Protein backbone atom coordinates (compact mmCIF):
# COMPACT_ATOMS: atom_id res chain seq x y z
CA UNK A 1 0.00 0.00 0.00
CA UNK A 2 2.67 2.48 1.04
CA UNK A 3 4.85 1.58 -1.90
CA UNK A 4 2.05 2.18 -4.33
CA UNK A 5 1.29 5.44 -2.65
CA UNK A 6 4.88 6.56 -2.97
CA UNK A 7 4.95 5.61 -6.63
CA UNK A 8 1.82 7.60 -7.28
CA UNK A 9 3.30 10.51 -5.49
CA UNK A 10 6.51 10.23 -7.47
CA UNK A 11 4.57 10.06 -10.69
CA UNK A 12 2.65 13.14 -9.73
CA UNK A 13 5.84 14.89 -8.78
CA UNK A 14 7.42 14.14 -12.13
CA UNK A 15 4.34 15.13 -14.03
CA UNK A 16 4.27 18.29 -12.01
CA UNK A 17 7.95 19.09 -12.34
CA UNK A 18 8.30 18.23 -15.97
CA UNK A 19 5.15 19.77 -17.28
CA UNK A 20 5.00 22.33 -19.96
CA UNK A 21 7.54 22.92 -22.66
CA UNK A 22 9.93 25.64 -21.60
CA UNK A 23 9.58 28.43 -24.07
CA UNK A 24 10.88 31.92 -24.24
CA UNK A 25 8.07 34.42 -24.23
CA UNK A 26 8.96 35.63 -27.70
CA UNK A 27 10.47 32.74 -29.60
CA UNK A 28 12.70 33.44 -32.55
CA UNK A 29 11.23 32.30 -35.78
CA UNK A 30 12.61 31.52 -39.19
CA UNK A 31 11.36 33.94 -41.75
CA UNK A 32 10.33 31.46 -44.40
CA UNK A 33 7.95 33.79 -46.13
CA UNK A 34 8.65 34.27 -49.80
CA UNK A 35 8.73 37.82 -50.98
CA UNK A 36 7.95 38.37 -54.62
CA UNK A 37 9.60 41.71 -55.21
CA UNK A 38 8.08 44.10 -57.65
CA UNK A 39 5.23 41.95 -58.76
CA UNK A 40 2.84 44.87 -58.78
CA UNK A 41 5.40 47.60 -59.35
CA UNK A 42 6.65 46.89 -62.83
CA UNK A 43 7.04 49.99 -64.92
CA UNK A 44 8.95 50.75 -68.00
CA UNK A 45 11.32 53.68 -67.94
CA UNK A 46 11.34 54.17 -71.66
CA UNK A 47 11.19 57.87 -72.11
CA UNK A 48 13.84 59.53 -74.31
CA UNK A 49 16.67 57.04 -74.18
CA UNK A 50 15.51 54.58 -76.74
CA UNK A 51 18.78 52.76 -77.25
CA UNK A 52 19.19 51.60 -73.65
CA UNK A 53 18.12 48.16 -72.64
CA UNK A 54 18.02 49.11 -68.98
CA UNK A 55 14.63 49.26 -67.39
CA UNK A 56 13.38 49.23 -63.86
CA UNK A 57 11.43 46.27 -62.69
CA UNK A 58 10.80 47.93 -59.33
CA UNK A 59 11.77 46.81 -55.90
CA UNK A 60 9.49 46.77 -52.90
CA UNK A 61 11.11 47.95 -49.73
CA UNK A 62 10.73 44.64 -47.92
CA UNK A 63 12.86 45.78 -45.00
CA UNK A 64 9.95 47.95 -43.85
CA UNK A 65 7.49 45.09 -44.13
CA UNK A 66 9.79 42.73 -42.28
CA UNK A 67 10.37 45.21 -39.48
CA UNK A 68 6.66 45.70 -39.11
CA UNK A 69 5.98 42.01 -39.01
CA UNK A 70 8.75 41.57 -36.46
CA UNK A 71 6.70 43.44 -33.92
CA UNK A 72 5.03 40.62 -32.04
CA UNK A 73 2.96 42.41 -29.43
CA UNK A 74 -0.26 44.34 -29.75
CA UNK A 75 -1.40 46.47 -26.83
CA UNK A 76 -4.93 47.26 -25.72
CA UNK A 77 -6.93 49.80 -23.75
CA UNK A 78 -8.25 48.97 -20.28
CA UNK A 79 -11.15 46.49 -20.37
CA UNK A 80 -11.25 46.76 -24.20
CA UNK A 81 -10.55 44.24 -26.93
CA UNK A 82 -10.64 46.50 -30.00
CA UNK A 83 -7.42 46.55 -32.00
CA UNK A 84 -6.28 50.16 -32.31
CA UNK A 85 -5.89 51.56 -35.88
CA UNK A 86 -2.15 52.04 -35.37
CA UNK A 87 -1.75 48.25 -35.63
CA UNK A 88 -3.39 47.99 -39.08
CA UNK A 89 -0.08 47.87 -40.99
CA UNK A 90 1.46 45.44 -38.56
CA UNK A 91 -1.44 43.02 -38.81
CA UNK A 92 -1.57 43.39 -42.59
CA UNK A 93 2.10 42.38 -42.71
CA UNK A 94 1.47 39.33 -40.53
CA UNK A 95 -1.58 38.38 -42.60
CA UNK A 96 0.57 38.61 -45.76
CA UNK A 97 3.19 36.42 -44.21
CA UNK A 98 0.63 33.81 -43.21
CA UNK A 99 -1.23 33.81 -46.52
CA UNK A 100 2.09 33.63 -48.36
CA UNK A 101 3.16 30.54 -46.44
CA UNK A 102 0.44 28.07 -45.63
CA UNK A 103 2.86 25.99 -43.53
CA UNK A 104 3.30 28.80 -41.03
CA UNK A 105 1.46 28.54 -37.69
CA UNK A 106 0.74 31.45 -35.41
CA UNK A 107 -0.32 31.28 -31.79
CA UNK A 108 -2.05 34.31 -30.31
CA UNK A 109 -1.69 34.67 -26.55
CA UNK A 110 -4.15 37.07 -24.96
CA UNK A 111 -3.27 38.80 -21.70
CA UNK A 112 -4.87 41.28 -19.30
CA UNK A 113 -3.68 43.56 -16.54
CA UNK A 114 -4.24 42.57 -12.92
CA UNK A 115 -7.34 44.69 -12.36
CA UNK A 116 -10.59 42.78 -12.27
CA UNK A 117 -11.15 39.15 -11.38
CA UNK A 118 -8.86 36.45 -12.73
CA UNK A 119 -11.38 34.40 -14.66
CA UNK A 120 -13.03 37.48 -16.13
CA UNK A 121 -9.56 38.47 -17.31
CA UNK A 122 -9.27 35.08 -19.01
CA UNK A 123 -12.36 36.14 -20.96
CA UNK A 124 -10.82 39.49 -21.76
CA UNK A 125 -7.56 37.92 -22.94
CA UNK A 126 -9.46 35.49 -25.14
CA UNK A 127 -11.52 38.33 -26.59
CA UNK A 128 -8.33 40.24 -27.43
CA UNK A 129 -6.71 37.23 -29.06
CA UNK A 130 -9.88 36.64 -31.08
CA UNK A 131 -10.00 40.27 -32.22
CA UNK A 132 -6.48 39.89 -33.63
CA UNK A 133 -7.38 36.53 -35.15
CA UNK A 134 -10.39 37.97 -36.98
CA UNK A 135 -8.30 40.77 -38.51
CA UNK A 136 -5.72 38.26 -39.73
CA UNK A 137 -8.41 36.00 -41.20
CA UNK A 138 -10.11 38.88 -43.02
CA UNK A 139 -6.77 39.72 -44.60
CA UNK A 140 -6.07 36.28 -45.94
CA UNK A 141 -4.66 34.07 -43.19
CA UNK A 142 -6.47 30.78 -42.94
CA UNK A 143 -8.23 29.59 -39.80
CA UNK A 144 -6.09 26.47 -39.48
CA UNK A 145 -2.94 28.57 -39.16
CA UNK A 146 -4.01 30.46 -36.06
CA UNK A 147 -4.59 29.19 -32.56
CA UNK A 148 -5.48 31.26 -29.53
CA UNK A 149 -4.89 30.93 -25.81
CA UNK A 150 -5.80 33.29 -23.01
CA UNK A 151 -3.58 33.64 -19.98
CA UNK A 152 -5.64 36.46 -18.48
CA UNK A 153 -3.51 38.18 -15.84
CA UNK A 154 -1.53 35.04 -15.02
CA UNK A 155 1.59 35.87 -17.07
CA UNK A 156 2.39 39.53 -16.70
CA UNK A 157 5.54 41.06 -18.19
CA UNK A 158 5.50 44.08 -15.88
CA UNK A 159 5.08 43.42 -12.17
CA UNK A 160 4.18 46.75 -10.68
CA UNK A 161 0.71 48.14 -10.12
CA UNK A 162 1.07 51.42 -12.04
CA UNK A 163 -0.73 52.43 -15.22
CA UNK A 164 2.51 51.97 -17.15
CA UNK A 165 2.82 48.37 -15.89
CA UNK A 166 -0.80 47.75 -16.79
CA UNK A 167 -0.28 49.09 -20.34
CA UNK A 168 2.50 46.58 -20.91
CA UNK A 169 0.39 43.69 -19.64
CA UNK A 170 -2.77 44.35 -21.70
CA UNK A 171 -1.54 42.62 -24.80
CA UNK A 172 -1.71 39.92 -27.41
CA UNK A 173 1.58 38.19 -28.15
CA UNK A 174 2.07 36.70 -31.59
CA UNK A 175 4.16 33.58 -31.53
CA UNK A 176 5.19 31.76 -34.72
CA UNK A 177 5.95 28.08 -34.48
Amino acid at each position, binding site marked *: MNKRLILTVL*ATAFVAAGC*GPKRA*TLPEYEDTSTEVPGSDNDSSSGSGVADSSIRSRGFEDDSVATDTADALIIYFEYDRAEVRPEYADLLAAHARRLSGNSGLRLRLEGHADER*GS*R*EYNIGLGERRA*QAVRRLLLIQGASAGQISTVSY*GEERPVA*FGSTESDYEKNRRVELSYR
Partner: protein
Amino acid sequence: MRHLSEKNQKNIMLSVAFWRQWLVFAGVFLALAAPVRAELVIEITRGAVKPIPIAIVPFGWSGTGNAPGDAASVIRSDLYGSGRFDPLDNDVMLERPVRGVDIDFDNWRFVAVDYVLVGRLEEVGDELALTYQLFDVYGARQVVADSLVLEPRDLRLASHRVADAVFEAITGVKGVFSTRVAYISVSGRPPERTYRLIVADADGNNEFVLLESAQPIMSPAWSPDGRQLAYVSFESGRAAVYVQTLRTGSRRAVSDRPGVNNAPAWSPDGRQLALTLSDAEGNLDVHVLTLLGNRLVRLTERRSIDTEPTWSADGRHVYFTSDRGGAPQVYRIAANGSEDAPERVTFEGNYNARPRVSPDGRYLAVVHDDRGRFRVAVQDLETGALQVLSDGSLDESPAFAPNSAQLIYATRREGRGVLETVSTDGLISGRVKSVGNDVREPVWSPYAR
Protein backbone atom coordinates in the same frame (compact mmCIF):
# COMPACT_ATOMS: atom_id res chain seq x y z
CA MET B 1 -23.52 20.79 24.47
CA ARG B 2 -21.43 17.76 23.67
CA HIS B 3 -20.04 15.62 26.39
CA LEU B 4 -17.84 12.59 26.20
CA SER B 5 -19.73 10.16 24.05
CA GLU B 6 -18.80 7.00 22.27
CA LYS B 7 -20.19 8.23 18.99
CA ASN B 8 -18.11 11.36 19.09
CA GLN B 9 -14.98 9.45 19.89
CA LYS B 10 -15.57 7.09 17.03
CA ASN B 11 -16.12 9.95 14.60
CA ILE B 12 -12.96 11.63 15.66
CA MET B 13 -10.95 8.46 15.46
CA LEU B 14 -12.28 7.80 11.98
CA SER B 15 -11.36 11.22 10.74
CA VAL B 16 -8.03 11.00 12.50
CA ALA B 17 -7.40 7.83 10.50
CA PHE B 18 -8.20 9.71 7.31
CA TRP B 19 -5.85 12.48 8.30
CA ARG B 20 -3.13 10.09 9.23
CA GLN B 21 -3.10 8.65 5.74
CA TRP B 22 -3.23 12.07 4.29
CA LEU B 23 -0.29 13.20 6.36
CA VAL B 24 1.82 10.19 5.37
CA PHE B 25 1.20 11.16 1.79
CA ALA B 26 1.98 14.80 2.54
CA GLY B 27 5.24 13.90 4.27
CA VAL B 28 6.52 11.86 1.36
CA PHE B 29 5.72 14.50 -1.17
CA LEU B 30 7.19 17.32 0.87
CA ALA B 31 10.42 15.46 1.38
CA LEU B 32 10.73 15.08 -2.37
CA ALA B 33 9.56 18.29 -3.85
CA ALA B 34 8.41 20.98 -1.57
CA PRO B 35 10.11 23.68 0.43
CA VAL B 36 8.50 23.57 3.86
CA ARG B 37 7.72 26.84 5.50
CA ALA B 38 6.56 26.34 9.02
CA GLU B 39 4.54 28.44 11.40
CA LEU B 40 2.64 30.78 9.17
CA VAL B 41 0.12 32.32 11.50
CA ILE B 42 -2.89 34.55 11.30
CA GLU B 43 -2.25 37.99 12.66
CA ILE B 44 -5.36 39.87 13.72
CA THR B 45 -5.46 43.31 12.13
CA ARG B 46 -8.82 44.19 13.69
CA GLY B 47 -10.38 42.14 16.48
CA ALA B 48 -13.76 42.10 18.16
CA VAL B 49 -14.56 45.22 20.19
CA LYS B 50 -14.99 43.05 23.28
CA PRO B 51 -13.09 39.79 22.79
CA ILE B 52 -14.09 37.07 25.25
CA PRO B 53 -11.56 36.61 28.07
CA ILE B 54 -10.60 32.97 28.42
CA ALA B 55 -7.86 31.05 30.23
CA ILE B 56 -6.28 28.10 28.47
CA VAL B 57 -4.33 26.39 31.19
CA PRO B 58 -1.21 24.48 30.02
CA PHE B 59 -2.23 20.83 29.64
CA GLY B 60 -0.93 18.11 31.91
CA TRP B 61 1.21 15.28 30.58
CA SER B 62 1.53 11.75 31.85
CA GLY B 63 3.81 9.50 29.86
CA THR B 64 7.45 8.79 29.22
CA GLY B 65 9.78 11.65 28.44
CA ASN B 66 8.58 15.10 27.43
CA ALA B 67 5.09 15.84 26.16
CA PRO B 68 4.94 15.24 22.37
CA GLY B 69 3.47 18.68 21.78
CA ASP B 70 1.84 21.68 23.39
CA ALA B 71 -1.90 21.33 22.76
CA ALA B 72 -2.81 24.34 24.88
CA SER B 73 -0.59 26.63 22.87
CA VAL B 74 -2.16 25.52 19.58
CA ILE B 75 -5.63 26.08 21.04
CA ARG B 76 -4.62 29.46 22.42
CA SER B 77 -3.23 30.58 19.08
CA ASP B 78 -6.36 29.37 17.24
CA LEU B 79 -8.73 31.21 19.58
CA TYR B 80 -6.61 34.35 19.59
CA GLY B 81 -6.32 34.23 15.79
CA SER B 82 -10.10 34.18 15.46
CA GLY B 83 -10.15 37.73 16.79
CA ARG B 84 -13.03 36.84 19.10
CA PHE B 85 -11.05 35.74 22.15
CA ASP B 86 -8.58 37.32 24.54
CA PRO B 87 -6.57 34.45 26.05
CA LEU B 88 -5.00 35.08 29.43
CA ASP B 89 -1.20 35.10 29.68
CA ASN B 90 0.10 31.95 31.37
CA ASP B 91 2.23 33.87 33.86
CA VAL B 92 -0.69 35.66 35.48
CA MET B 93 -2.54 32.42 36.23
CA LEU B 94 -2.92 31.86 39.96
CA GLU B 95 -3.21 28.10 39.57
CA ARG B 96 -2.68 25.55 36.80
CA PRO B 97 -5.21 22.78 37.26
CA VAL B 98 -5.42 20.01 34.67
CA ARG B 99 -8.76 18.60 35.92
CA GLY B 100 -12.11 20.23 36.54
CA VAL B 101 -12.26 19.01 40.13
CA ASP B 102 -9.09 20.94 40.95
CA ILE B 103 -10.36 24.32 39.72
CA ASP B 104 -10.86 27.06 42.30
CA PHE B 105 -13.23 29.36 40.41
CA ASP B 106 -12.40 32.35 42.65
CA ASN B 107 -8.88 32.29 41.23
CA TRP B 108 -10.33 32.77 37.74
CA ARG B 109 -12.95 35.32 38.72
CA PHE B 110 -10.08 37.32 40.22
CA VAL B 111 -8.27 37.51 36.87
CA ALA B 112 -11.61 38.29 35.15
CA VAL B 113 -11.88 35.50 32.62
CA ASP B 114 -15.30 34.22 31.55
CA TYR B 115 -14.10 30.72 30.70
CA VAL B 116 -11.33 28.38 31.70
CA LEU B 117 -10.14 25.41 29.68
CA VAL B 118 -8.20 22.64 31.40
CA GLY B 119 -6.90 19.40 29.91
CA ARG B 120 -4.36 16.68 29.93
CA LEU B 121 -2.52 14.45 27.58
CA GLU B 122 -1.89 10.83 28.49
CA GLU B 123 0.13 8.12 26.87
CA VAL B 124 -2.07 5.08 26.22
CA GLY B 125 0.12 2.43 24.64
CA ASP B 126 1.21 3.80 21.24
CA GLU B 127 -1.56 6.33 21.29
CA LEU B 128 -2.44 9.49 23.14
CA ALA B 129 -5.59 10.50 24.96
CA LEU B 130 -6.33 14.21 24.85
CA THR B 131 -8.94 15.14 27.45
CA TYR B 132 -10.32 18.64 27.88
CA GLN B 133 -12.97 20.38 29.94
CA LEU B 134 -14.31 23.88 29.40
CA PHE B 135 -15.86 25.71 32.34
CA ASP B 136 -18.02 28.79 32.66
CA VAL B 137 -16.21 30.64 35.46
CA TYR B 138 -19.16 32.64 36.81
CA GLY B 139 -21.62 29.76 36.71
CA ALA B 140 -18.93 27.30 37.93
CA ARG B 141 -20.34 24.91 35.36
CA GLN B 142 -18.80 22.56 32.77
CA VAL B 143 -19.75 23.72 29.25
CA VAL B 144 -18.14 21.08 27.06
CA ALA B 145 -15.74 18.20 27.55
CA ASP B 146 -14.41 15.27 25.58
CA SER B 147 -11.58 12.81 25.42
CA LEU B 148 -9.94 12.14 22.05
CA VAL B 149 -7.74 9.17 21.23
CA LEU B 150 -5.12 9.72 18.54
CA GLU B 151 -1.71 8.82 17.23
CA PRO B 152 0.99 11.23 18.40
CA ARG B 153 1.48 12.67 14.90
CA ASP B 154 -2.14 13.91 14.92
CA LEU B 155 -1.76 15.95 18.08
CA ARG B 156 -1.83 19.25 16.25
CA LEU B 157 -5.00 18.34 14.35
CA ALA B 158 -6.64 17.07 17.53
CA SER B 159 -5.73 20.36 19.24
CA HIS B 160 -7.45 22.25 16.40
CA ARG B 161 -10.51 20.09 17.00
CA VAL B 162 -10.54 21.04 20.66
CA ALA B 163 -10.34 24.70 19.62
CA ASP B 164 -13.28 24.07 17.24
CA ALA B 165 -15.35 22.60 20.09
CA VAL B 166 -14.50 25.44 22.48
CA PHE B 167 -15.27 28.04 19.82
CA GLU B 168 -18.64 26.46 19.06
CA ALA B 169 -19.61 25.98 22.71
CA ILE B 170 -19.01 29.65 23.45
CA THR B 171 -20.01 31.48 20.27
CA GLY B 172 -22.63 29.10 18.89
CA VAL B 173 -20.75 29.13 15.57
CA LYS B 174 -18.91 26.05 14.37
CA GLY B 175 -15.12 26.45 14.53
CA VAL B 176 -12.99 26.10 11.40
CA PHE B 177 -9.55 25.65 12.96
CA SER B 178 -9.30 22.02 11.84
CA THR B 179 -10.12 22.82 8.21
CA ARG B 180 -7.68 23.57 5.42
CA VAL B 181 -7.07 26.18 2.76
CA ALA B 182 -5.88 25.62 -0.81
CA TYR B 183 -4.18 28.42 -2.71
CA ILE B 184 -1.83 29.24 -5.57
CA SER B 185 1.72 30.39 -4.91
CA VAL B 186 3.99 31.91 -7.54
CA SER B 187 7.71 32.47 -7.39
CA GLY B 188 10.38 33.70 -9.78
CA ARG B 189 10.31 36.06 -12.74
CA PRO B 190 9.72 35.12 -16.40
CA PRO B 191 10.85 32.96 -18.02
CA GLU B 192 11.64 31.08 -14.78
CA ARG B 193 8.33 31.21 -13.00
CA THR B 194 7.03 28.44 -10.80
CA TYR B 195 3.35 28.06 -10.04
CA ARG B 196 2.30 25.84 -7.13
CA LEU B 197 -1.02 24.56 -5.94
CA ILE B 198 -0.72 24.30 -2.16
CA VAL B 199 -2.92 22.89 0.58
CA ALA B 200 -2.28 23.99 4.18
CA ASP B 201 -3.99 23.92 7.55
CA ALA B 202 -6.32 26.86 8.14
CA ASP B 203 -3.64 28.48 10.33
CA GLY B 204 -1.11 28.25 7.48
CA ASN B 205 0.84 25.29 8.90
CA ASN B 206 1.60 22.02 7.13
CA GLU B 207 1.93 23.44 3.64
CA PHE B 208 1.76 20.68 1.11
CA VAL B 209 2.46 21.14 -2.62
CA LEU B 210 -0.15 19.35 -4.70
CA LEU B 211 1.10 20.46 -8.11
CA GLU B 212 4.07 22.42 -9.39
CA SER B 213 4.35 23.80 -12.91
CA ALA B 214 6.23 26.31 -15.03
CA GLN B 215 2.86 27.27 -16.55
CA PRO B 216 0.01 29.01 -14.73
CA ILE B 217 -2.27 27.12 -12.34
CA MET B 218 -5.48 28.85 -11.31
CA SER B 219 -9.00 28.60 -9.89
CA PRO B 220 -8.71 25.75 -7.35
CA ALA B 221 -12.06 24.43 -6.08
CA TRP B 222 -12.70 21.88 -3.30
CA SER B 223 -15.10 19.03 -3.91
CA PRO B 224 -17.92 19.09 -1.34
CA ASP B 225 -16.46 16.05 0.46
CA GLY B 226 -13.05 17.75 0.74
CA ARG B 227 -11.27 14.87 -0.95
CA GLN B 228 -10.64 16.35 -4.38
CA LEU B 229 -9.60 19.63 -5.90
CA ALA B 230 -10.57 20.85 -9.35
CA TYR B 231 -8.29 23.46 -10.91
CA VAL B 232 -7.12 24.97 -14.18
CA SER B 233 -3.62 24.20 -15.40
CA PHE B 234 -1.88 25.51 -18.53
CA GLU B 235 0.76 22.77 -18.44
CA SER B 236 -0.20 21.52 -21.93
CA GLY B 237 0.21 25.00 -23.39
CA ARG B 238 -3.47 25.82 -23.01
CA ALA B 239 -6.06 25.78 -20.30
CA ALA B 240 -7.58 22.49 -19.13
CA VAL B 241 -9.59 21.59 -16.05
CA TYR B 242 -8.19 18.80 -13.86
CA VAL B 243 -9.57 16.97 -10.87
CA GLN B 244 -7.03 15.65 -8.38
CA THR B 245 -7.63 13.36 -5.42
CA LEU B 246 -5.68 14.58 -2.41
CA ARG B 247 -5.05 11.30 -0.69
CA THR B 248 -3.68 9.43 -3.71
CA GLY B 249 -2.38 12.30 -5.82
CA SER B 250 -4.05 10.78 -8.87
CA ARG B 251 -5.68 13.17 -11.28
CA ARG B 252 -7.43 13.41 -14.61
CA ALA B 253 -8.29 16.10 -17.13
CA VAL B 254 -12.08 16.50 -17.05
CA SER B 255 -12.25 19.26 -19.65
CA ASP B 256 -9.56 19.71 -22.29
CA ARG B 257 -11.49 21.11 -25.21
CA PRO B 258 -10.07 23.53 -27.77
CA GLY B 259 -10.12 27.06 -26.36
CA VAL B 260 -10.98 28.13 -22.84
CA ASN B 261 -11.54 25.47 -20.14
CA ASN B 262 -11.75 27.48 -16.97
CA ALA B 263 -13.44 28.41 -13.69
CA PRO B 264 -14.53 25.00 -12.34
CA ALA B 265 -17.12 24.97 -9.51
CA TRP B 266 -18.51 21.83 -7.86
CA SER B 267 -22.22 21.34 -7.44
CA PRO B 268 -23.22 20.83 -3.78
CA ASP B 269 -23.77 17.10 -4.43
CA GLY B 270 -20.31 16.76 -6.02
CA ARG B 271 -21.65 15.19 -9.20
CA GLN B 272 -21.34 18.15 -11.52
CA LEU B 273 -18.88 20.87 -12.34
CA ALA B 274 -19.99 24.25 -13.61
CA LEU B 275 -17.24 25.62 -15.83
CA THR B 276 -16.50 28.12 -18.57
CA LEU B 277 -15.86 27.01 -22.13
CA SER B 278 -15.33 29.01 -25.31
CA ASP B 279 -16.69 28.38 -28.79
CA ALA B 280 -14.77 28.74 -32.07
CA GLU B 281 -15.29 32.52 -32.00
CA GLY B 282 -13.85 32.74 -28.51
CA ASN B 283 -17.20 33.45 -26.89
CA LEU B 284 -17.13 32.37 -23.24
CA ASP B 285 -20.19 30.63 -21.83
CA VAL B 286 -21.05 28.87 -18.60
CA HIS B 287 -21.67 25.13 -18.90
CA VAL B 288 -22.51 22.32 -16.50
CA LEU B 289 -20.55 19.10 -16.85
CA THR B 290 -21.93 15.93 -15.27
CA LEU B 291 -18.78 14.07 -14.27
CA LEU B 292 -20.20 10.59 -14.56
CA GLY B 293 -20.97 10.15 -18.26
CA ASN B 294 -19.28 13.40 -19.29
CA ARG B 295 -22.59 15.07 -20.22
CA LEU B 296 -22.34 18.79 -21.01
CA VAL B 297 -25.17 21.36 -20.81
CA ARG B 298 -24.63 24.93 -21.93
CA LEU B 299 -26.34 27.47 -19.65
CA THR B 300 -25.59 30.80 -21.34
CA GLU B 301 -25.32 31.90 -24.95
CA ARG B 302 -24.33 35.46 -25.56
CA ARG B 303 -21.51 37.33 -27.13
CA SER B 304 -20.63 38.54 -23.66
CA ILE B 305 -18.03 37.17 -21.28
CA ASP B 306 -20.06 34.75 -19.15
CA THR B 307 -17.80 33.11 -16.55
CA GLU B 308 -16.96 32.53 -12.87
CA PRO B 309 -19.88 30.20 -12.16
CA THR B 310 -20.76 29.21 -8.60
CA TRP B 311 -23.69 27.20 -7.26
CA SER B 312 -26.53 28.26 -5.02
CA ALA B 313 -26.51 26.37 -1.70
CA ASP B 314 -29.45 24.21 -2.85
CA GLY B 315 -27.74 23.37 -6.16
CA ARG B 316 -30.65 24.64 -8.25
CA HIS B 317 -29.05 27.79 -9.60
CA VAL B 318 -25.72 28.91 -10.92
CA TYR B 319 -24.51 32.45 -10.28
CA PHE B 320 -21.98 33.86 -12.74
CA THR B 321 -20.27 37.05 -13.93
CA SER B 322 -21.36 38.56 -17.24
CA ASP B 323 -20.61 41.81 -19.03
CA ARG B 324 -23.79 41.50 -21.13
CA GLY B 325 -25.01 44.78 -19.67
CA GLY B 326 -21.77 46.59 -20.54
CA ALA B 327 -19.85 46.14 -17.29
CA PRO B 328 -19.39 42.95 -15.26
CA GLN B 329 -22.31 42.11 -12.96
CA VAL B 330 -23.54 38.93 -11.32
CA TYR B 331 -26.48 36.99 -12.81
CA ARG B 332 -28.29 33.83 -11.83
CA ILE B 333 -29.67 31.06 -14.02
CA ALA B 334 -31.25 27.62 -13.52
CA ALA B 335 -28.54 24.97 -13.23
CA ASN B 336 -30.42 22.44 -15.36
CA GLY B 337 -30.43 24.65 -18.45
CA SER B 338 -34.19 25.19 -18.40
CA GLU B 339 -34.00 28.98 -18.41
CA ASP B 340 -33.06 31.11 -21.42
CA ALA B 341 -32.62 34.42 -19.68
CA PRO B 342 -30.68 34.81 -16.46
CA GLU B 343 -31.77 37.17 -13.74
CA ARG B 344 -29.45 39.99 -12.74
CA VAL B 345 -28.50 39.83 -9.07
CA THR B 346 -26.09 42.70 -8.35
CA PHE B 347 -27.02 46.33 -8.92
CA GLU B 348 -24.81 48.46 -6.70
CA GLY B 349 -21.96 50.13 -8.58
CA ASN B 350 -20.68 49.39 -12.07
CA TYR B 351 -18.55 46.33 -11.28
CA ASN B 352 -19.45 43.21 -9.32
CA ALA B 353 -17.72 39.98 -10.27
CA ARG B 354 -16.43 36.57 -9.09
CA PRO B 355 -19.50 35.57 -7.03
CA ARG B 356 -19.37 32.95 -4.26
CA VAL B 357 -22.41 31.84 -2.25
CA SER B 358 -21.99 31.24 1.50
CA PRO B 359 -22.54 27.60 2.49
CA ASP B 360 -25.65 28.62 4.48
CA GLY B 361 -27.05 30.27 1.35
CA ARG B 362 -27.51 33.70 2.94
CA TYR B 363 -24.77 35.74 1.34
CA LEU B 364 -23.13 36.34 -2.00
CA ALA B 365 -19.49 37.44 -1.85
CA VAL B 366 -18.25 39.45 -4.83
CA VAL B 367 -15.35 41.59 -5.95
CA HIS B 368 -16.82 45.08 -6.02
CA ASP B 369 -15.40 48.21 -7.63
CA ASP B 370 -15.55 50.69 -4.77
CA ARG B 371 -14.70 54.01 -6.47
CA GLY B 372 -11.78 52.62 -8.40
CA ARG B 373 -10.69 50.12 -5.76
CA PHE B 374 -11.44 46.45 -6.09
CA ARG B 375 -12.76 45.22 -2.76
CA VAL B 376 -14.47 42.22 -1.27
CA ALA B 377 -18.16 42.80 -0.57
CA VAL B 378 -21.05 40.61 0.53
CA GLN B 379 -24.60 40.98 -0.63
CA ASP B 380 -27.42 39.73 1.57
CA LEU B 381 -29.31 37.53 -0.89
CA GLU B 382 -32.62 38.22 0.84
CA THR B 383 -32.49 41.99 1.20
CA GLY B 384 -30.06 42.75 -1.62
CA ALA B 385 -28.00 44.99 0.70
CA LEU B 386 -24.31 45.13 -0.21
CA GLN B 387 -21.59 45.66 2.39
CA VAL B 388 -17.94 46.28 1.50
CA LEU B 389 -15.73 44.23 3.84
CA SER B 390 -12.13 44.87 2.79
CA ASP B 391 -10.11 48.05 2.52
CA GLY B 392 -7.43 47.32 -0.10
CA SER B 393 -7.44 48.34 -3.74
CA LEU B 394 -6.73 44.98 -5.41
CA ASP B 395 -8.67 42.59 -3.19
CA GLU B 396 -9.89 39.51 -5.00
CA SER B 397 -11.02 35.88 -4.89
CA PRO B 398 -13.14 35.87 -1.72
CA ALA B 399 -13.97 32.39 -0.39
CA PHE B 400 -16.24 31.53 2.52
CA ALA B 401 -15.17 29.39 5.45
CA PRO B 402 -17.44 26.34 5.81
CA ASN B 403 -19.19 28.01 8.78
CA SER B 404 -20.19 30.98 6.56
CA ALA B 405 -18.97 33.33 9.31
CA GLN B 406 -15.64 34.23 7.75
CA LEU B 407 -14.02 34.81 4.37
CA ILE B 408 -10.49 34.49 3.10
CA TYR B 409 -9.35 36.53 0.11
CA ALA B 410 -6.19 37.63 -1.69
CA THR B 411 -4.80 41.11 -1.87
CA ARG B 412 -1.53 42.86 -2.60
CA ARG B 413 0.69 44.36 0.08
CA GLU B 414 4.06 45.85 -0.82
CA GLY B 415 3.89 44.42 -4.33
CA ARG B 416 3.25 40.89 -3.17
CA GLY B 417 0.15 38.71 -3.08
CA VAL B 418 -0.96 37.94 0.49
CA LEU B 419 -4.01 36.31 2.05
CA GLU B 420 -6.35 38.07 4.45
CA THR B 421 -9.43 37.06 6.38
CA VAL B 422 -12.51 39.01 7.34
CA SER B 423 -15.64 38.06 9.26
CA THR B 424 -18.84 38.07 7.22
CA ASP B 425 -20.13 40.92 9.41
CA GLY B 426 -16.98 42.89 8.57
CA LEU B 427 -16.01 43.41 12.22
CA ILE B 428 -12.92 41.22 12.47
CA SER B 429 -10.05 41.03 10.03
CA GLY B 430 -6.72 39.27 9.94
CA ARG B 431 -3.76 38.52 7.74
CA VAL B 432 -2.19 35.15 7.04
CA LYS B 433 1.51 35.78 7.52
CA SER B 434 3.55 34.17 4.81
CA VAL B 435 7.15 34.21 3.78
CA GLY B 436 8.45 35.22 0.38
CA ASN B 437 6.16 34.06 -2.35
CA ASP B 438 3.25 35.64 -4.10
CA VAL B 439 0.08 33.90 -2.92
CA ARG B 440 -3.42 34.14 -4.35
CA GLU B 441 -6.76 32.44 -4.94
CA PRO B 442 -7.38 30.95 -1.48
CA VAL B 443 -10.22 28.47 -1.12
CA TRP B 444 -11.45 27.18 2.20
CA SER B 445 -12.02 23.43 2.50
CA PRO B 446 -15.35 22.03 3.64
CA TYR B 447 -15.45 20.33 7.04
CA ALA B 448 -13.69 16.97 7.07
CA ARG B 449 -16.22 14.16 6.89
